[in-house]
């Protein structure tokens, strides 16, 4: 069973590394994507566009290499939960959101597709989190 969780680790970590790298390559686009939610001032959207992709990548690497493992979980679960709430709130406010979370390919995903992908990632993170609580991860206290 440990082997299966390790695979899930690598897949989820890989997803965040990929998603972060795509956004880090085009921060202007990501700033626009954040701004589309009409929650934050533009200046903060730009700051987050430079910061969040690297945070995602570092947390993804933390899952892959099992370093700062629990901290990475806490951050990723918080990030994806905030993103889910923002997406639902935007939908309720009638905003046409282009997320771009996975680069250009995801720009034309509809609301249901966004929700399904985010919920699947959140479920995988929570499952991994619960599995590590049962059997502490190697190096998890580092």
């Amino acid at each position, binding site marked *: 069973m440990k082997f299966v969780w390790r695979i899930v680790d690598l897949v989820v970590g890989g997803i965040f590394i990929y998603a972060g790298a795509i956004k880090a390559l085009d921060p202007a686009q990501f700033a626009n994507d954040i*701004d589309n939610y009409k929650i934050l001032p*533009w200046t903060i959207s730009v700051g987050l566009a*430079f*910061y969040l992709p*690297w945070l995602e*990548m570092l947390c993804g690497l933390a899952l892959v290499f099992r370093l700062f*493992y629990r901290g*990475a979980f806490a951050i990723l679960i918080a990030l994806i939960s905030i993103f889910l709430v923002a997406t639902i709130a935007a939908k309720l406010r009638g905003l046409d959101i282009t997320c771009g979370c996975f680069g250009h390919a995801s720009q034309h995903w509809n609301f249901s597709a966004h929700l399904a992908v985010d919920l699947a990632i959140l479920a995988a993170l929570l499952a991994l989190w619960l599995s590590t609580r049962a059997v502490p991860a190697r190096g998890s206290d580092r």
Partner: protein
Amino acid sequence: MKSSLVRQALILAALALVPGFVEAIYFRDKISWQSPVPASEMVTAAQARAWGSNAIWVDARPDAEFASDHVPGAVSLNEDRWNELLPQVLAVWSPEKKVVVYCSSLSCNASREVARRLRKEAQLPNVFVLKGGWEEWLKSKK
């Protein structure tokens, strides 16, 4: 365990600041922290009108809004039908012309998104976003 989790999360959050900061310096001339569209890429209705036949007006609003009314001579180009509509913009474009993209109002995103894609994907120079969009154009007509 909780303190270790918080400590790990804080370390990751702090580490991500470093590449984010470096990237912000690298992109300092490419992204404006003040406004989603740099002032040099914005144009007022009065300025755009003064360009006369040298301006190509691009309507980034949805098809129904374009059909209901638009700037005389404007061509429709929205993200929903980008591939289908782009050729008609390219057909009227020539190197000396300036492209003015507009959407419904000051708060809409479609014009800057279409302008960005015209610059990046269609490689067009001199692409501007109309400040205040269609609403501003209507006001300037009075």
